[in-house]
């Protein structure tokens, strides 16, 4: 048996269903984002943690030039260490049949018997290599898929200038390469980075590592901190060319994964708050109108004995029903979205199996958030009317008082027609509501700007990095620092039009107890290809006197220009020296220190400092250049400019456009929800005067000006606010994503602002179109008979 008051509730709900629905859609959008982010976060985190635990992913990683095997025993003695694994790891150039481009490869040793102690791989197809057979290898699954490699297919690794055939006997996944990205890349490219696992004894032979190793992983006892182990490990490895140990947090695959999880958590917090806040405001506006219209009904209900509390609840229930309906829709939508988002994630983050996680807690949290938003919105609206004594509520509310609006007082009055004055005065009568409507619409524009400007910023990063900073076609890195001979060898390759030596060294920069291991690059002052350019597009003048640091690096080390750093070389005779920081540069990728070439050479007192080269090549001769590079023994890695740009474009096509579309859709839901409800409330409040105007002979178009003029003004005011808000949200996001691996420049194209503005205008047009149908059905006769 439904109580009479509840029946009234149902009928009220039905009568204003379109407004309720518009609000429910705003709630649903926020809850969908909340649920989708929470499910993705939980699923990815659980999947990752179980995978790491099962495959014994290391806690500390280090590499060195060559460490004798007997040192391994002392690794066990490091503080807090639970288990130790040593390996031979080598970077190589790969020659994959069917692909002319040289591909970067990494060869990792497997124990000659048994499974790896740490960082175990998961076999996806095929079998483990036979330790007796030198050519048998496992390959990471994504690379095999990228190149369409089957079991039994050959791949050639260039080892010491000799092509050595590897035969694929199995495909695997590794916790170290969940996000398989080559150093210096922004995005993982399955075709450009292959990881192979093969029997240790053969790999050691090929790289002169018999009786030794060059890669160390440690796992820590529960609760042990990584820092003491890292400090002692660095000391232990120093005589063997140790390059500095890193904790798991800095392991590159883990870092990207963690970064994504942090982003998801941010989204799970911020976006739903915006959506629910706007929904609360809309509920407040609609309820205020509803109780105003039902003022006399409330009086009657109180007169016959309903309590304030019961009546208050009655109206709050209306808000709760609307927002819980939105919440339920949002939960369903969010669950669907999370499946789509997770399958996109699985393209870039590779796990053996995905553990989908959702919890009743999330659903409860979502529903509670909806309930909170509705009570928040409804309470203030209902409170005043419900408190009125019945006798007072029986009397009509005091007529609205108006005053001349500010704009008119400023002297614009004589330029305004009466309908425009009506619009302005109506707005200025409820400035708080007008302001909230503006804020609501502005958030919608802001979300669009932020989403699409994030893309602009990413494109700017690519453009700056690959067209201004690195203008070469190919970047070659060497195994060891080379002298002039390597330069001439590269220059003599037919098709190579330009060669620029990249001089550098690996070093540790120390400021008190803060330190970072970085590459110090020495760039030629007249460099044409690889340059040092700040986000302001200004090439940096290399200063003979000191170091120039990436601004991010200076921040991390806590130094300012003019201060001194301790520089410890990690190669050659490992000299140390204090150097003055002369300037910082706002570069966007990685963190580096830059030094004038002669200064670098003096510091190392070594003739060979060329760690690689930047090449310009003739596009017609691309294939022969690639073939020559594959055959050069000194070449450890080859990065291709066009491949990086292509993988970026693929990423955009697969990923970003979907995300943009979803954001656009959700932002439109807000815009429509706010504008449509504003228009409907306005129509409800003003139907009497609009009908009076129709009676006086105003056409539909002319009264449309009064109603939609208000919307147009709100929308027009909201657009610039929204664009500015979107830009500052972007600035916040850029700052939040400022990392040592890359930093996004703060860029928003005019097109981004224009399309957000157009989208808001379209939302307004749609709302106006829907409301105009109601406006055209105004009952002229009815409004004349009644006192408002």
């Amino acid at each position: 048996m439904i109580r009479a008051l509840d029946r009234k509730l149902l009928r009220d709900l039905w009568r204003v269903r379109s407004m309720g629905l518009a609000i429910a859609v705003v709630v649903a959008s926020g809850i969908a984002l909340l649920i989708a982010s929470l499910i993705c976060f939980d699923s990815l985190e659980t999947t990752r943690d179980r995978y790491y635990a099962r495959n014994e992913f290391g806690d500390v990683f280090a590499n060195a030039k060559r460490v004798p095997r007997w040192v391994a025993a002392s690794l066990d003695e490091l503080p807090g260490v639970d288990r130790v694994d040593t390996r031979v790891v080598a970077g190589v150039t790969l020659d994959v049949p069917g692909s002319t481009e040289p591909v970067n490869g990494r060869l990792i040793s497997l124990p000659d018997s048994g499974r790896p102690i740490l960082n175990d791989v998961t076999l996806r197809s095929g079998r483990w290599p036979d330790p007796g057979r030198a050519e048998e290898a496992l390959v990471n699954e994504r690379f095999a898929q990228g190149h369409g490699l089957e079991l039994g297919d050959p791949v050639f690794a260039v080892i010491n200038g000799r092509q050595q055939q590897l035969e694929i006997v199995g495909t695997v996944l590794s916790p170290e390469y969940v996000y398989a990205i080559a150093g210096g890349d922004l995005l993982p490219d399955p075709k450009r980075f292959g990881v192979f696992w093969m029997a240790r004894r053969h790999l050691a032979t090929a790289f002169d590592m018999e009786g030794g190793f060059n890669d160390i992983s440690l796992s820590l006892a529960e609760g042990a901190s990584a820092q003491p182990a890292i400090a002692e490990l660095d000391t232990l490895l120093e005589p063997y060319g140790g390059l500095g140990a890193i904790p798991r947090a800095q392991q590159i695959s883990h870092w990207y994964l963690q970064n994504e999880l942090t982003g998801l958590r941010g989204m799970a917090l911020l976006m739903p708050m915006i959506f629910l806040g706007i929904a609360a405001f809309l509920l407040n506006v609609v309820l205020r109108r509803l109780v105003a219209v039902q003022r006399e009904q409330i009086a009657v209900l109180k007169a016959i004995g309903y309590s304030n509390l019961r009546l208050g609840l009655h109206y709050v229930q209306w808000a709760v029903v609307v927002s819980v309906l939105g919440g339920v829709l949002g939960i369903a939508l969010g669950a669907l979205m999370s499946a789509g988002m997770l399958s996109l994630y699985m393209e870039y983050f590779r796990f053996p199996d995905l553990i989908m996680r959702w919890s009743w807690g999330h659903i409860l949290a979502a529903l509670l958030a909806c309930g909170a938003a509705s009570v928040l919105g409804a309470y203030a609206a209902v409170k005043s009317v419900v408190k009125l004594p019945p006798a007072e509520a029986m009397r009509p509310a005091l007529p609205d008082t108006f005053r001349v609006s500010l704009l008119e007082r400023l002297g614009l009055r004589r330029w305004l027609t009466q309908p425009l004055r009506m619009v302005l005065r109506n707005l200025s009568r409820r400035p708080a509501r007008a302001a909230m409507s503006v804020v609501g619409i502005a958030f919608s524009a802001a979300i669009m700007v932020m989403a699409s400007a994030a893309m602009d910023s990413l494109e700017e990063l690519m453009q700056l990095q690959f067209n201004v900073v690195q203008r070469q076609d190919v970047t070659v890195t060497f195994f060891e620092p080379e002298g002039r001979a390597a330069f001439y060898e590269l220059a003599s390759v037919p098709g190579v039009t330009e060669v620029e030596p990249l001089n550098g060294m690996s070093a540790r920069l120390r400021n008190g107890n803060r330190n970072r291991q970085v590459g110090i690059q020495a760039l030629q002052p007249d460099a044409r290809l690889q340059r040092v350019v700040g986000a302001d597009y200004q090439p940096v003048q290399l200063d003979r006197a000191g170091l120039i640091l990436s601004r991010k690096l200076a921040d991390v080390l806590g130094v300012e220009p003019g201060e001194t750093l301790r520089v410890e070389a990690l190669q050659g005779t490992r000299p140390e020296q204090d150097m003055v920081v002369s300037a910082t540069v706002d570069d966007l990728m990685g963190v580096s220190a830059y030094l004038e070439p002669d200064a670098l050479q003096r510091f190392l007192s070594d003739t060979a400092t060329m760690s690689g080269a930047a090449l310009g090549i003739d596009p017609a001769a691309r294939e022969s250049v690639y073939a020559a590079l594959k055959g050069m023994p000194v070449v450890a890695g080859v990065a291709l400019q066009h491949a990086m740009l292509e993988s970026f474009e693929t990423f955009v096509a697969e990923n970003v456009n979907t995300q943009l579309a979803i954001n656009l859709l959700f932002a439109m839901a807000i815009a429509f929800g706010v504008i449509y409800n504003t228009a409907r409330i306005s129509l409800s409040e003003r139907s009497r005067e609009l009908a009076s105007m129709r009676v006086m002979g105003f056409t539909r178009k002319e009264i449309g000006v009064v109603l939609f003029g208000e919307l147009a003004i709100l929308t027009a005011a909201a657009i610039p606010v929204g664009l500015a808000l979107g830009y500052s949200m972007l600035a916040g996001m850029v700052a939040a994503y400022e990392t040592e691996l890359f930093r996004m420049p703060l860029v928003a194209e005019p097109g981004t602002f224009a399309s957000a503005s157009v989208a808001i205008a379209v939302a307004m047009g749609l709302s106006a179109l829907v409301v105009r149908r109601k406006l055209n059905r105004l009952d002229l006769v009815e409004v004349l008979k009644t006192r408002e």
Partner: protein
Amino acid sequence: MNESSNGAATPQEGALAVSMRDVTKVYQMGEVEVHALRGVSVDLEIGGFTVLLGPSGSGKSTLLNILGGLDVPTSGQVFYRGQDLTRADEGELTQYRRRRVGFVFQFYNLIPSLTARENVELVTEISEDPLPAQEALDIVGLADRSSHFPSQMSGGEQQRVAIARAIAKRPDILLCDEPTGALDITTGIQVLEALERVNNEYGATTAIITHNAAIATIADRVVSLADGRISRQHANETRAAASTIEW
């Protein structure tokens, strides 16, 4: 006192502002048919002052709405200066109201966000040859209240603003629906005086509907309605002054 029991005299070309012939109006209220008008013929002579008298539910408001182009009859014909309004479309009716008709309503229907003067200007801005707004307010004796908002005025004052608004366009026809219905006698008489003055000095064809028989004495002609029909129709030989009536 001339009296005829049913219908109006034969329409005289040129002398009539509006004439209605055998007009019926049936509303569908859910499953019930309501016959608001059951074959009514009425003429409004140019410059005449007519009172349509009847109890509530007699159909007088429906009649006024049809005269004013706010509603269309179910059957019958309505002519404005010989032009058939029943054939007019929505846009033509809007233009008819805009150019020819001034309305005054029981609840004034002023725009609350506009001052007295601006309420009048609302109409003068869309009219072809209007009175200056200030003059219209002068006629109803509100020249000194022109910058007040409706919420700052009494009911009688608001109604007089409504009259100023209605006459400012120099309407051919002034239609008033219970203009004193929400007012006490003193302010009601002020309002009637204003209407009387507009009719006398500007020659607007005026029709007032009311249930208040006392008001009938100020008219040239009185048409009584009951149950959707004209029950009685007569002309007053002399019009009483609005200031003399009592109720």
